[in-house]
């Protein structure tokens, strides 16, 4: 049981970070980003490819995974999203454009896997597991693999630095202003274009980092994004889609319930239900939407006095 909980914590950290990325992009640009699936998969592949090339510990390459996907996110913004926002495209068009981007990235990631295989013949880019490379700390009564403290430390560090960024830096405050009222922000001289670009960078980088964390526990392959997209969306939606911290919370709820819930179900009813693990995030998401449509973000907003949340009704704003 303790092992199940520890594993669940790592999976949840990865899902929570990537879900927070979805929310950051959605809050600022109103784009529901399907390409997030591929961003996460890219996190897997950056870590794996660099590990093959340079060796050492997989953790060395986590920053590169975040940086690389962040830059891909910026590229997506500059080539596609920016022009659609300028034209005032509706939400469904924005969503569909990221679906197109996702298909392109999916094709490219598959080609990337082919490339790794052709240059490094002994590699397994369509089925790799980095879990065994993880150093294990022996605390006497329990053995803890490094991925557990590292993923939790990463989540806490991201929360703290995002908090600092959004409340104590000039650009962070400008970002919150833009999210609340883009027109007013522009009047006040905020470069909203830069804000959107930063949002895409942070959002995509979080997806890459989430993917890197997940690569330490799950089997990596080009289709990993397709598997993770639903828990990621579920985490973001359960979180309420208008609060970064709500979606971190939502990601943890989804990840923990998926891992621990299926364990309990298998234990009490029967192991044939393990195959239904992917259904748990869906059920939680649907329940959350039907009974708690404001999301976990609203809970946090009540507690924290709407500090980092986008108010639901923005009078007269609009892009």
């Amino acid at each position: 049981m303790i092992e199940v909980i520890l594993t669940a914590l790592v999976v949840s950290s990865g899902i929570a970070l990537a879900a927070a990325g979805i929310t950051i992009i959605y809050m600022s640009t109103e784009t529901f980003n399907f390409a997030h699936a591929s961003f996460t998969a890219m996190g897997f592949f950056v870590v794996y490819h660099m590990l093959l090339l340079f060796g050492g510990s997989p953790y060395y390459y986590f920053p590169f995974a975040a940086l690389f996907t962040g830059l891909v996110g910026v590229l997506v913004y500059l080539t596609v999203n920016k022009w659609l926002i300028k034209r005032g495209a509706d939400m469904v068009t924005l969503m569909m454009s990221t679906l197109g981007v996702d298909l392109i990235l999916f094709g490219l990631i598959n080609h990337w896997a082919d490339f790794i295989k052709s240059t490094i013949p002994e590699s397994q880019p369509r089925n790799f597991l980095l879990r065994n490379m993880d150093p294990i700390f022996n605390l006497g009564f329990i053995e803890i693999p490094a991925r557990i403290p590292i993923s939790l430390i990463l989540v806490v560090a991201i929360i703290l630095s995002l908090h600092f960024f959004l409340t104590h830096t000039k650009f962070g405050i400008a970002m919150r202003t833009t999210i609340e009222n883009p027109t007013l922000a522009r009047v006040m001289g905020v470069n909203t274009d830069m804000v959107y670009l930063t949002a895409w960078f942070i959002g995509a980088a979080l997806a890459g980092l989430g993917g890197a964390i997940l690569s330490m526990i799950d089997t990596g392959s080009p289709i990993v994004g397709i598997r993770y997209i639903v828990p990621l969306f579920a985490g973001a939606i359960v979180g309420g889609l208008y609060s970064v911290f709500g979606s971190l919370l939502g990601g943890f709820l989804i990840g923990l319930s998926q891992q621990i819930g299926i364990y309990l179900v298998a234990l009490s009813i029967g192991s044939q239900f393990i195959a239904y693990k992917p259904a748990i995030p869906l059920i939680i998401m649907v329940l959350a939407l039907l009974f708690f449509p404001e999301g976990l973000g609203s809970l946090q907003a009540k507690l924290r006095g709407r500090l980092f949340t986008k108010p639901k009704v923005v009078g007269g704003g609009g892009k």
Partner: protein
Amino acid sequence: MIEIPAWMVEILFTFGIFLIITVSLNFEVGYAGIPQFGRVLAVLIGAIVAGAVPGRLLVAMFNVSVEYGGEEIVPIGADYANHLINFRLVDRINNEILGVNPGLSIAMLIFTLLIAAVFGALIGYLTSYPALRLKEAYLGITLLAFGDTLQLIARNEAGIVGGTQGVFIPNFFKWTGVGSIQITNKILAILLISAIIFLLVELIGKSPFGRSLKAMRDSEAAAKVYGKDISRLRGYTLMIGGALAAIGGALYVSYTGSMDARTFTRLTWTFWPWAFMMLGGTGNNVGMLVGVLFFALFRYIIVAYKTVLEGFIPINTAWLEYILIGLIIVAVSMFRPQGLIPEKPKTILKREEIEGVASSTSEEGA
């Protein structure tokens, strides 16, 4: 008897099946403005019906038995889908019953499509619960989640349609001949049904119901002001769209002869139709025709000229296909969001006619 050449079969098959799916999607998205990101749900239920119902029914009707575990059994429950039993059973059905009985074959095909439509409508009715309460991205993701869940069930419950082993579908066209003649007949049947569905949706679109859907899409408030019941309109739309998509799913597996839940991915059965629809022109059925035909030809060309393409683009054509379809979606949403053939705005009466009507009514009033 005409024979469709082999190279055209793949194009016409893709065209016929995806025309049905895309027209049903366009009915919900283009006409009624519902973000249907779970098209695969209704398609899959149609395929499940085709995989589960007609075979069992024929087994029960004709007492078809097979030898299993040392004894003769007539499997109509979960054991029908057992992969050790199913292929022999369907083989017997095809050879002994459907192959020699054209009337029954046609009746069973029509019956299967009808049952599929009923289940598709039922699924549409069930999805109207969230569709009335959620908006835009939230609804889209919920519908997507429903589709994934059903696929998960079909894949894991081996007793329905064989799980990952799949089941075989009775061949309703066995009596028409063998080889390319049979394939020609199958293709003609698919094209006939997709033409009927196309005309049906076109007629519905021009009817008062279709016009109120478009009114609802453009402004819910305005539609409400004119006394339209929004929840009823949305419910009917989802039911009709679901029924049509289910027919498409049932036809697809009836053509291929086997049903494997794993082939019903959201990519192929939700996102592709979205791409076809966007390319053709959302809200316009003729656009669907163009969009689907374009993609059917496009896919054929990529597969046919695989080796040539790989010569100058060093990417496996399987991945190249994803990249190109992705590029088309991005390009359409960026440069031509209205699609190749945009929806025509509803023409109003000519000025003289309006003046005529106005003067006649004012005379009446005077």
